[in-house]
């Protein structure tokens, strides 16, 4: 029974913290305005630190980090409010592309890969319907392709004779059209349309997709916990210093009790995350859903307690809430995740 980070995990955490530390809100905003929504040079830096490789198997040239190792990275990136799409273009592709020739460039940071899975009308389902492959040609439209504005490589779920398979398509391929649009966290997602785009054999099917998504849900949970804890800390510091009606906000009993509620939720979701990471039979979708619901509440309260300033883009608070909102819905929202758990029980 032990909830301490080991030596390597501590190194990863410190490494992420150092990586995130220099980025203040203004710099963050500047990076969001860059082509693709973040700084590719920093992405390379992240790769050089081994923080993408950690998600890949050793046989793929990665560090073969455990789920726990990776969750430490995800949580630290959450606490650092990083703009880099580690989860979307690091962890998830590393899990999906294992054993393929693409993975080396993903680990090195040279190739930015992303999963194109969502389809209009599919809500949160994972199976591909409208996008299909026939005779080696990919057709159809994917939406909500995260980091789609910057991605070099799409991993596309497509229907083949009624089954969902995964195909790899470079952005530069003929018949690929990318229409970027901004989403909650300030990143650029895209609607991606395929018109007779040529594809080779699939790299896997529903099983690989489901398993990678489930692991990614744990990383999303970890990132949200990190985000929520960051917002808690900033809010605690704020109420201790901000004065209203002649005393710090934190002297008002209502604010005190609210802070205890926030603290309580932060501890609860940290515990839920540990459970999801350490107990292999945990339902990842439900854990993520629960953590998401509480993290949203923490984010909303952080905005509320910061008052007008919390509403602006000038503080980290709104950025944290918006990242939580995006993660809370990726691969299913709180209601759908808990409903799924309720039915499974």
């Amino acid at each position, binding site marked *: 029974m032990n909830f301490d980070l080991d030596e390597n995990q501590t190194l990863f955490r410190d490494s992420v913290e150092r990586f995130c530390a220099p980025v203040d809100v203004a710099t963050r905003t500047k990076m969001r305005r860059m082509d693709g929504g973040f700084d590719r040079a920093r992405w390379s830096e992240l790769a050089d630190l081994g923080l993408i490789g950690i998600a890949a198997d050793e046989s793929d040239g990665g560090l073969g980090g455990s789920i726990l190792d990776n969750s430490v990275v995800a949580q630290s990136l959450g606490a650092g409010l990083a703009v880099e799409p580690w989860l979307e273009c690091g962890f998830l592709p590393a899990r999906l592309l294992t054993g393929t020739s693409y993975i080396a460039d993903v680990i090195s940071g040279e190739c930015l890969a992303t999963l194109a899975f969502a389809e209009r009308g599919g809500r949160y389902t994972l199976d591909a319907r409208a996008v299909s492959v026939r005779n080696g040609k990919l057709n159809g439209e994917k939406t*909500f392709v995260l980091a789609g504005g910057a991605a070099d490589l799409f991993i596309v779920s497509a229907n083949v004779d009624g089954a969902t398979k995964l195909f790899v398509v470079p952005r530069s391929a003929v018949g690929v059209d990318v229409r970027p649009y901004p989403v909650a966290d300030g990143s650029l*997602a895209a609607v991606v349309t395929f018109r007779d785009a040529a594809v080779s054999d699939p790299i896997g099917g529903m099983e690989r997709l489901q398993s990678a998504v489930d692991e990614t849900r744990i990383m999303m949970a970890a990132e949200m916990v990190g985000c929520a804890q960051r917002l808690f800390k900033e809010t605690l510091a704020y109420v201790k210093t901000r004065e209203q009606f002649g005393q710090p906000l934190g002297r008002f009993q209502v604010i005190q009790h609210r802070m205890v509620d926030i603290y309580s939720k932060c501890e609860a979701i940290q515990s839920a995350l540990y459970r999801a990471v350490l107990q292999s039979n945990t339902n990842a979708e439900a854990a993520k859903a629960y953590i998401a619901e509480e993290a949203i509440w923490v984010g909303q309260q952080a905005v*509320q307690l910061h008052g007008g300033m919390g509403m602006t883009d000038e503080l980290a608070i709104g950025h944290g809430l918006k990242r939580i909102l995006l993660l809370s819905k990726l691969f299913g929202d709180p209601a759908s995740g808990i409903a799924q758990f309720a039915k499974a029980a």
Partner: protein
Amino acid sequence: MDMSFSAEDLAFREEVRDFLEAKLSPRLREGAACTPSVFVEPDITRDWQSILNEKGWLATMWPQEYGGPGWTATQKYIFEKECAIAGAPALPVLGLKLVGPVICKFGTPAQKAHFLPRILSGEDYWCQGYSEPGAGSDLASLKTKAERKGDKYVVNGSKIWTTHAHHANWIFALVRTNPEAKKQEGISFLLIPMDQPGISVTPIVTMANDHEVNATFFDNAESRVENLIGEEGQGWTIAKYLLENERGGSCAAPALLAELDRIEAWAKEEPSGVNGAMDHDPILMQRLARLRMEAQAFEITELRILAELAKGRPAGPQTSLIKLVSANIRQSIDELTVDLFAYDGLQLPTSRPLYGNEAPEPVGSREAQLALPTYLNGRAWTIFGGSDEVQKTIIAKQVLGL
């Protein structure tokens, strides 16, 4: 007890409906529907304002002698309700509903003659200088000072959350004219022209990507002494009048209920991904139904207040709850909308406006595109104009006697 309107009121309602039907152009409707923030941009409101002004229905809160339509409380309610249901654009409240009534009440004949017509015509566009960086909900601790020098006040300091200051040519501000006096006693209510070198306006972009509010800085800005409303030191009294005036009859529920109807219609269209549409999702529909119950109850609370006002009686303690309750229902509605639209509800356009030809193409529907900006902007409902926490303390003291 009786919840029905009189025959005269029903006839008036028909008149309003016909008018709205005739005058609300598609452009106006679109501008109103596709504005995620609370304040609608002048390019939309200007036209609507001039249509209403022509009809004499613009300054509903002003006495008839200054251009008000001379309506009863019930007529005002009916007009606002029909506008909400028809989807008319919100008017610029700062001139019409805030400073206008103050000038009607406290202004000199010259001030009335000068300012009121220009508010009606839209020639003057007003913003408000109340909050300061160091004083959010705690207004009385404001620091911006106005020193009298000859026939002018020289203003130094800064105001924050100045909505549409970047559009306005006038600002009404609470300023400290007497630094010696006790907190509230040294405050005056001053009108200041915006178009002068001593004033600079810096945008504050919200997390929704809207530019609605600003920080406004006064560096030896000037205003002539005849722009003082009331006496020096009377500012706090005037500010209180302004707030109370704002809190008279209200008509927030009809818009909330209309929004819930729209969500229900959208739910019928939004695929559940499994089979059928989201109107068969029990969890989402339970939330929708629960919210509707709240909003329907809230509608009656507003009518209870109206019934008192219509009889010339004081509005009763429920008035104090209106802002609190409506803000919270609205935020729940915004949250539900974002949830309904799944991934499409996560798009967050960076450019404005979201109507007309300049609007970015939505992913999915226009409604989905508006969901998240509206939600994020709407977090302000429980903050601005006295946060929930401040409201509750006031109600506890003034209504419950705690």
